[in-house]
């Protein structure tokens, strides 16, 4: 039987080795000791393992002194599909996670943008775990992205060879003004090595941000 050893990052703090030995078993060692696989679930359909995943995410908030979200704030794709944003799938918003916080404000706000713009702006990133967010060195660990209240829209214009477009940014900003949502200043977006995009927070008020310049 083949053996495959896979190393993965564990919560941004230590390197963990996932050892897969055939179909038989695996161990996960690293950090402060060895983590063995948890006891088997009690029966079909049990949700104890889902709870464990949410616990794991909640721990990330606690470790970083962020307000710990309640269990009910986390959704998986089935739960999201029961009350989704009309034009965005769970996959598009959840950052590759099995569970994510996708707030009502986010879903409502995204739908509002679509209504006002009469098109579906591309979301580059919405929910990010605290672990992912803190790996974006220098970024706010407990940012609005970690509570599913903010989104970044792409401002690459498919009708202009995918070049960045201030027209798109300014249109998004006009919509944000109408809907009264906070927008990060353009100057801040492109500061240093920033890549042009449109950051909106659906739980804060419009702030008359510095507008986009330098692109068509």
């Amino acid at each position, binding site marked *: 039987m083949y053996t495959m050893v896979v190393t993965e990052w564990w919560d941004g703090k230590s390197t963990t080795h996932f050892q897969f030995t055939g179909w038989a078993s695996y161990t996960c060692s690293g950090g402060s000791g060895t983590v063995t696989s948890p006891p088997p679930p009690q029966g079909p359909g049990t949700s104890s393992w889902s709870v464990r995943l949410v616990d794991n995410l909640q721990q990330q908030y606690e470790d970083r002194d962020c307000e710990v979200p309640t269990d009910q704030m986390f959704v998986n794709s089935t739960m999201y599909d029961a009350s989704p944003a009309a034009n965005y799938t769970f996959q598009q918003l959840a950052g590759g996670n099995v569970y994510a916080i996708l707030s009502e404000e986010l879903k409502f706000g995204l739908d509002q943008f679509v209504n006002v713009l009469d098109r579906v702006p591309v979301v580059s990133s919405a929910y990010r775990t605290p672990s992912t967010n803190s790996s974006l060195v220098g970024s706010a660990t407990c940012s609005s992205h970690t509570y599913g209240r903010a989104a970044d829209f792409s401002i690459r214009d498919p009708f202009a060879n995918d070049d960045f477009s201030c027209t798109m940014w300014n249109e998004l900003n006009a919509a944000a003004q109408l809907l009264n949502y906070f927008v990060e200043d353009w100057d801040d977006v492109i500061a240093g090595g920033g*890549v042009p*995009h449109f950051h909106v927070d659906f739980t804060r008020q419009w702030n008359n941000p510095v507008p986009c310049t330098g692109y068509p």
Partner: protein
Amino acid sequence: MRVVILSSLLALSFAVRAEPAPRPKVKPCTVTADMLSVYRDPAGASDQQWRAARDAALDLMVSECRHTGPRRGSERAAVFALLENEMRVDYANVFAARRKRTGKPLPESAAEGPMYFQRDLSEFIDRIVTAEDIQYKDVILRYGGGLAISKLGKAVKSSVFRQAAEPARSFYGVEMRSPQVEAIRAIGYWLDPGSPVLNAAERKEWAQILATLLPSDGILLDAEHHPRLIRTALEALSRSDSAAAEESIRTWRNVYQNNYGRGDSIEILAQEAADKIKARNRKR
């Protein structure tokens, strides 16, 4: 008469509206010195230098050579130098220096910059690499995505097998990518029966190996990184034509579903992967 004129005017206005706006000209495929200049001293580079470097690289990614990359030797070498240099930047250091220089905290959007840039760069490299880029194999194996690695083909087969079977010693990029996971992804492209890289026996063997990445008890070790690995394995296996792999995925999906219920993104991906293999075999 008036009706005719009005109709003509309306028709004309529709015709004018229907006329598409002229598409802007695609940018020329230009590699400038700005693109690499910041990497000599990333922490010491000014905001203006970073802006110029980013713009030079981002322009190249949407230029005339967006699908092929520059063809001239030195310019092509610069693109792979960009990949290597960018993925090695210690952004904690860069941002600390910036905070010291400006006396201001870093805006969140600016910190997101490297994430978006590295994603764009990785997609660009995935698009442009061909088997001819073998001279850059060390950089591509170390910092390239699975698709780029796979395009190097048979020449890197044994290296990729080794990379897939060995734990990575380090991670790279702000999203903490793993050369091992990218090697697994590359093998996934080779599992496609239309790929000439693996022979039938190797495809069968690697489908079997990758299936062992699905934990037999169907339990995720964490909420983030283990799912990412399982997703990579499922996506890789979905390109296979191995009936045994299809069976393994279906069995695993049942176990996983017993633990986590129906309809989460991994369970759906497992279902899709098994169905893709089945559909491929039905066509043959």
